[in-house]
């Protein structure tokens, strides 16, 4: 039997007086590629934050790797929306990707040869060979997106959580980032579980194996299995 990676049961939460998530129930098994879709403002990112353990919730039960959310950082790779940090920050691609090793290191511990090798491998997987020493301010949106994927991969995660990877990216890169996801799944076989949040139901339906639909107007949860 496949291991259950995420179990979410009757999850509800309110933010600023309005009910963002209402009785959300779904599960993610090992090796799944799950797409969470819904309209903008439909609580997709909030749901992702709950799974990451950085958003509290009112009721329901959520477990990630059999523990409460936030208790297994070393098993999770997180690819945030790229808009939330400063592009003028003095940091190179290599250093940014190395940050993906943080969950595996204790405080005071310095990055060693193993960490550097993992970062190198992740940069190769994401096709960043020629950009390793580049300062992040000089990257295109699509390149930066791949850097964030590489950072998540550097920690050798068992679960990859991606927040709106297509948003505000040029049409050409849009396919490329999904092709990268498909490529990763093929390379890492069933060892990598992926959960992707997006409002672009049409595009991701070609890639995911399972879809979770957060439809606020119907308060319904629909799912389908892709074979």
């Amino acid at each position, binding site marked *: 039997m496949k291991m259950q990676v995420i179990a979410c049961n009757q999850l509800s939460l309110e933010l600023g007086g309005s009910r963002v998530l209402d009785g959300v129930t779904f599960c993610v098994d090992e090796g799944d590629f799950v797409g969470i879709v819904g309209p903008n403002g439909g609580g997709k990112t909030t749901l992702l934050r709950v799974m990451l353990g*950085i958003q509290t919730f009112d009721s329901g039960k959520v477990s990630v790797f059999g523990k409460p959310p936030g208790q297994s950082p070393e098993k999770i790779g*997180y690819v945030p929306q790229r808009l939330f940090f*400063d592009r003028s*920050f*003095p*940091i*190179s691609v290599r250093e940014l990707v190395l*940050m993906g090793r*943080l969950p595996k290191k204790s405080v005071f511990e310095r990055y060693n040869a193993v960490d550097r090798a993992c970062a190198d491998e992740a940069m190769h997987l994401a096709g960043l060979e020629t950009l390793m020493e580049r300062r992040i301010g000089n990257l295109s949106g699509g390149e930066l997106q791949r850097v964030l994927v590489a950072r998540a991969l550097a920690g050798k995660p068992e679960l990859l959580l991606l927040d709106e990877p297509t948003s505000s990216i040029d049409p050409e890169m849009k396919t490329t980032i999904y092709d990268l996801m498909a490529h990763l799944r093929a390379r890492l076989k069933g060892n990598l579980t992926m959960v992707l949040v997006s409002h672009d139901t049409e595009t991701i339906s070609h890639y995911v194996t399972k879809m979770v639909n957060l439809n606020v107007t119907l308060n319904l949860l629909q799912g389908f299995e892709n074979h």
Partner: protein
Amino acid sequence: MLHEILAFDFMRNALIAALLSSIACGIIGSYVVVKKIGFISGGIAHTAFGGIGLSYYLGINPLSGIIPFSLAAAMIIGVLGKKAHVAEDTAIGTLWAIGMAVGVIFIGITPGYAPDLFSYLFGNILTVPTFDLWMILLLDVLIVALVWLFNKEFLAISFDEEYAEVSGLPTMGLYLLMLALIALTVVIMVRVVGIVMVIALLTIPAALARTFSRSLPRMMLVAVLLSALFSIAGLLLSFLLDIASGATIILVAGLTFFGVHAWQWITALMKKR
């Protein structure tokens, strides 16, 4: 000329103070700039004025009075900013004014005249006693050691605090530690440029250094050098022209800052043509 200047004891102390304070200033200033917490740092600095007033009242060395006061200010501002249900800038602005008010009241109820109050507000690097130099050195060592120990964690919370938290780092504790280091840097720099102008010298060298740096450690190194350059140039100018040293240092730094930006703007304009 330099030989003559160095013949004065007070000038030697002033130069040493300028160099030592530049170390903390460049390193911590870089965090202030990349994490965009200039206003928070200004709040810590001004709240620390309460510590100076308290020191006058108790009759102790003001530098030792500022340390606990600015550390407490850093913790309160850090916690209020993250947890309180008021806007962060409101919380900081309020504490900023309360700290100053406490300082003014303590100085008011202290009998007699407050001798070098002005030098704590606006700095007077020419009157740094040797005891303070040792204290500055000690704080420098502490700051450098902690930054060395926590460099990957500080980089992570400066770059993307949410990602750092997801990675399992104790981000709140690290953030408070960073604010504590800012508080100690403020203490060091009070002697050089004074409470009111600390924030300028903390941010200008680092902001300039960012333009030329590809990594945070490089930015810190350049910021330390620039800070030393500004302090020494300002010190010598103030000596030669017989004007206030703290204000001269700030003017040298500020004018360089605007000069560099004007130059960049002009060259960018020329390229466009």
